[in-house]
Every structure is written in structure tokens, then in C-alpha cells.
């Protein structure tokens, strides 16, 4: 493959050169990240409002969450962010094999995260710690609290939306694995990997906020 900037096959017709295409993609991605932050921002506001309305209920209800599983998930997700960085680094260094390995590792960590989340959710479904009207758990540790269903509404909406992002991320990473294995992504053109990497770090970052807000304080 030549280094002639005017006609590499990944350059779309409406761009001048590779650099412009790369810069544009990056700017678009950051704008998208801003949008994502504001989406979750709305929910964080809801969290803050209800926490200030029902402070005791929030403190009481978060004891019902499984801190160990939450912590484990935090570690899993941070590790997956690391493997994602390594995947991008490897492909920059022309080490496609290592990159592929790291992508697969990221994918598996993401899968593990959702698996642990599944265990947490299914326990809550069993005991009736569900959002809104479906809430039925009446354990002694929570009997004196007002409206615990609101805590679980917010918990399920925020972690659910985050989980959805993890699932979408897994789909994107699966596509990266495919494209890297086929050689469509390489040291000359790895923009999609870098962009999806940014997205993945955002997913990680949001969890880093969610974990203490729901499990710890």
C-alpha cells in the first residue's frame, strides 16, 4: 500500500486528506461524548434531587446493594479500559496480533461485567427490590423508610442505561475484532478503534461515578 495521501482506499471522497478525515472523526466523537454526558447528567440531577428529599431512605436503601459485586465490576471495567488502550497502542505499533488479543480481552471483560450485573439483577428480582409499582420487598432493615421504590427506580434506570451502553460497546468491539482480524484496520488506519476506545472510556467513567453513588454513600 502506498503512502500517497490522495487515494488510500479508506479516504472518503469528500475529504482532502487522511488527516482531515481523522480530525473530523475525532471532533464528531467528542461532540457525541458531550451529548452522552448530558444524557446521564439529567439522571444524575434526578438522583441528587431525590437524595436531598429522602436522605435517610437513600442511605438505608443502598445497604441492600451488594458492595462486593459492585467493587468487582468496577475492577473488571477499569481493566477492560486498560486492555482497550493497549489494543490501540498495539495497532499503532503495527502489532496486529497483540491488538486483536487485547480487543478480545476487552470483549470478555465487558461480558463478565454484564454477567455480574445479571447476578445482581436476578437477586433483586427474586426478593422484589424492583422499580416503582413493582417494588414489593419489605425487609426489616427498610421497613421504616419512605418510598424505597424511588431509590430502586433510579438505580435500575441508571445502571440499566449504563448496561445498555456496555452491550452496545460489546457490539462495537465485536465489529473491531472482525475488522482487525480481516486486516481492514491497521497501523495506517485505525480511527474506528480509537473512536470506539473513547466511547469505551466514557462507559467506564460513568460507572466510576455510579459505583460510589449507589453502593458506597
Amino acid at each position: 500500500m502506498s503512502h500517497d495521501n490522495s487515494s488510500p482506499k479508506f479516504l472518503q471522497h469528500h475529504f482532502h486528506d487522511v488527516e482531515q478525515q481523522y480530525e473530523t472523526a475525532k471532533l464528531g466523537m467528542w461532540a457525541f461524548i458531550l451529548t452522552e454526558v448530558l444524557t446521564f447528567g439529567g439522571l444524575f440531577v434526578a438522583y441528587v434531587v431525590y437524595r436531598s428529599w429522602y436522605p435517610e431512605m437513600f442511605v438505608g436503601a443502598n445497604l441492600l446493594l451488594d458492595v462486593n459485586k459492585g467493587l468487582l465490576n468496577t475492577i473488571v471495567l477499569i481493566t477492560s479500559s486498560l486492555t482497550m488502550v493497549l489494543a490501540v497502542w498495539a495497532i499503532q505499533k503495527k502489532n496486529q496480533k497483540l491488538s486483536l488479543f487485547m480487543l478480545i480481552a476487552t470483549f470478555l471483560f465487558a461480558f463478565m461485567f454484564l454477567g455480574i450485573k445479571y447476578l445482581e439483577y436476578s437477586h433483586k428480582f427474586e426478593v422484589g427490590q424492583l422499580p416503582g409499582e413493582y417494588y414489593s420487598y419489605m425487609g426489616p432493615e427498610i421497613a421504616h423508610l419512605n418510598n424505597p421504590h424511588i431509590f430502586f427506580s433510579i438505580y435500575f434506570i441508571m445502571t440499566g442505561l449504563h448496561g445498555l451502553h456496555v452491550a452496545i460497546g460489546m457490539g462495537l468491539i465485536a465489529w473491531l475484532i472482525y475488522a482487525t482480524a480481516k486486516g481492514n484496520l491497521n497501523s495506517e488506519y485505525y480511527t474506528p478503534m480509537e473512536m470506539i476506545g473513547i466511547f469505551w472510556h466514557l462507559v467506564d467513567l460513568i460507572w466510576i461515578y455510579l459505583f460510589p453513588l449507589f453502593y458506597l454513600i
Partner: protein
Amino acid sequence: MAENQKQNYLTHPKGIMSWLLTLDHKRIGLMYLFGGIAFFFLGGVLALGMRLELAAPGNDFVSNDTYNNMYTLHGAIMIFLFIIPAIPGALGNILLPLMLGAKDVAFPRLNLASFYIYTVGALFVMYTIISGGVDTGWTFYTPYSTTSTSNVIPMTMGIFVIGFSSILTGLNFIATIHKMRIPGLTWYKLPLFVWALYGTSLVQITATPVIAITMVLLILERLLGIGIFDPALGGDPVLYQHFFWFYSHPAVYIMILPAFGIISEIIPVHSRKKVWGYKFIAFSTLSIAFIGFLVWGHHMFTSGQSVFSQIVFSFITYFVGIPTGVKIFSWMLTMYKGQVSFTPPMLYALSFLFLFTIGGLTGIFLGAVALDIHLHDTYFVVAHFHYVMQGGTIIAFLGGLHHWWPKSMGTMYNQTVANICCLGVFLGFNGTFFPQFLLGLRGMPRRYATYDQQYAELHNYSSFWSGILGLSIFISIMNLLWSLRKNNKLDPGTNPWGGMTLEWTHTTSPPHPHNFEEEPVLEHGPYDYDKVIVEPTFKK
């Protein structure tokens, strides 16, 4: 070369699939345009139905429930399916890359995806209508919207989906404006329409996610009773209002900023004069976009929020007014020592100045807390936002449509008919909405299907003129479409108004499929009528 001249984006390539799968921003823009106009028509028919019901005090034409459905759908369709997507989606898409000298927007596939997402959202709305409508008002205030038996879920789902279309368009435009300009086209040489789209896009990507999440919460409230907004479950309906207006006030600027952009293009071109206060107009666009995020509480002056909030929101509200006011003076002074032609786009721009000034000034009445308490949720508010949204945005949209019609379609409409229609729109609009200010002062509440006899005369007057307004808009659109008849093509080199921006000077009408046959070289600024003579050319 001769062969090449015949090639334009409308005719090349051919076939229905080449339209449905097109990545060409101009074709996507046209699809938005015709989609938007179709919904404009639907929303307009609903509006005329409402005016018919309101012509006399009782339930003379439809029942309360039907009326409530009509006004809800009128608001939702006009705002979410027409005004928000119309100017950025249609005119913005067609013009932005042309004005930047680019071959396309930054992400053409995403652009097509935005259009289809818009279509899916529109289908949800159509489904809502077919399956019996929705009666909550376009604001979907809780707890009415969580308890109403009408089809709230498909409607809010539609708005949620359309929100993504809006976000993706905004994102695409931001990347385009930053990265796709030709060399030499610096920020201060950009046409003001581009600045306006930039401000709009910033608001789109930052405010729209909040409405999306609000709609999700509303849907979940109905499905699962999550108790966030429902007081019966420990939630707070006023929180919903905060969420809703945090988006919907900035959304007003999503609707009006592109209109400012259009006016900033039309007036210099048709006055053949350098625009007055370029930098001021550009920066006031950005500052309005920013301050617009801080004033949402003025929609809630009677909700019982704290005195402190009332004072702060009232204060900041006035800060949006001042840059807007200076813009109006700048447009007016642009004509100073120019050569003003009374073409249809210019007449629309002058109507805009007249009507938008009334819309803006009546906003000052509503910003004063004590007076707003009397006027809140009355026809005064109805008249105010119609003066801003229709007298402002839709008039500017029609002006822009007439301005760029020869460019995008390569045909010229009958200018005399267009001028008469513009006058009809102007008179019909004032006749319809000015009496509503008086109704509001006298205490006539909005969203009433029936009303007291004392309001009958003004309502009747308003209904009469709404017919003239509707007819004028209808004829003006028909006049545009009629120009598309056979053998009415303009010469591809035509520049009927003597425009100076790249879309007029460096490409054909209608433009080449790839916009420019060769990359344009910037020779002058967008409004250098003091340095270069661009003769208007108008040939068949």
C-alpha cells in the same frame, strides 16, 4: 464542459433508489424539506380546525376531547416535525457545505441516518394520530400525562426518536463547520447563516439529550410507575417541568437562531450592502445560545418555585433580550446606503423585522414577574410565541425558501404572486394573532375549547384572519411548486439576487452533484458589496 454543465444533483444519478439511499447532503436536505412542508400542512390544517371551533364560544364544531387532541397535535407536529428540523435539516443541509466550499457534510452516512430516524419518529407520531390521538398538550405535564388514557407513549416515543435525529444533525454540522472549510475561509469570513447553524447545533447536542431522558422517564412512569414524577408515588410533578423546560427553552433557540441566520443572509444580498455589525451578530448568536440555557424557570413563574428563583430567572431572561435587540438594529441599519430591491425574500425579511420585534417586545412583558403572573397561560402567551415562532421562524423560513429556491431547484417562481402572498401572510398573521394579545390581557386562558361570551368578538376576528393566513401560505407554497413545471429551467449560471457567498458565485443552479466542479478559491468575503460588483443575472 457542455456535458458537465447539464449535470446537476437533481437529475444525476437517476432512479428512486438513488434518492432513498443518497449520501448527497442536497438531496437529503430536499427530502427534509418536503417532509417538513407536509407536516407544516398537517399542523396548519389542525390550526384552522381549532380556529373554526373557537370562532364562536360554545362547542359548535368539535367536542372538548377532539379540541384537546387537535391543539396537542398541532403543537407537537409544528414544533418537533416542522420547525426544529425544517431550517437546519432542509436549508441547513442544502446550504452548509456549499457555503463552506465543501463537497459534503462531515459524515454523509450519519446525515442520511438522521433523516431516517426523523422518519421513524414521524411514523410514531402518525401512529398516535391514527390510533386515537393524544390530549396532554405538547408539554406533557405530569401527572396529567401519566394518568391520561390517551396515547401518550407512542407520542413521547416519537419525540424521543426525533431527538436523536436532531442530535446527530447538530453533531454533523459542528464537525462540518470546524473541519470542512476550504483554505482561507476563516471564522470571520463565514456567512452569518453558518454562524447561526453553529450556535443551533451546539444547543442541539447539549439540550436534546435532556429531553430524551425526560421522555424515557415519562414513559417508564406510565409503564412501571417508577415514582419520579408521580406525586402519588412520592415523586414531584414540578421536577418534570424543570426537566422539560431545561430542554424546551433552549429549543426555542434551536428554532429561532437559524431564522436569524437566514435574515442575516437575505438583507445584505437584497440591499447589496455589507452587513452591519458582522462580529456582533456572530457573537450574539453564541451568547444567546449560551444564556438560553439559564432561563428555563421563566416558564414556571406560577408553579410556586422559591422567590429567589423567580428573581434570578427574571433577571437572566432580560439578558437574552438585549443581544437580540441589537441584532434587530443591525439588520435595519444594513440597508443604510445600500440598493434595496423589494423582492419576495426581502419582503419576507422586512415582515420578519416587524413581527419579530413585536414578538421580542412582548417577551419583556412576560419577563416581569408581577405582570407575568396575570398573563401566564393566557392568550397573551399564545400570541407572544406565535409572533416569535411563526412571525419569526416560519416567515424567515419562507423568506429563505424564496431566496434559495432558484439555487436549489434551478427554477424561478412568479415573483408578483410571491409578493402578494407575502403581503397576505403578513396581514393574515397580524389579524390572527394581534387580537390574541388583547384576549390574554382580559384573562382568556389558553387551551380552552369553549369560552365566555365576553371574548367572542376578538376570537371571531382572529378566526376570520386565520383563513387568510392559511390561504396565503398555501398559495405561496403552490407558487413555488408550480415553478417546477416543464421547460421552466433557468440558465445554470444564474445568480438572480447577486449573492456573494460561495453557493452563488462558484457553482451552478442547481449545483453539481459534487457541489463544485473544482474546489473553489475564496476571492472575497461574504458581504463585500463595497469591494466587488456581482451583477444579478437572471436568464432562462
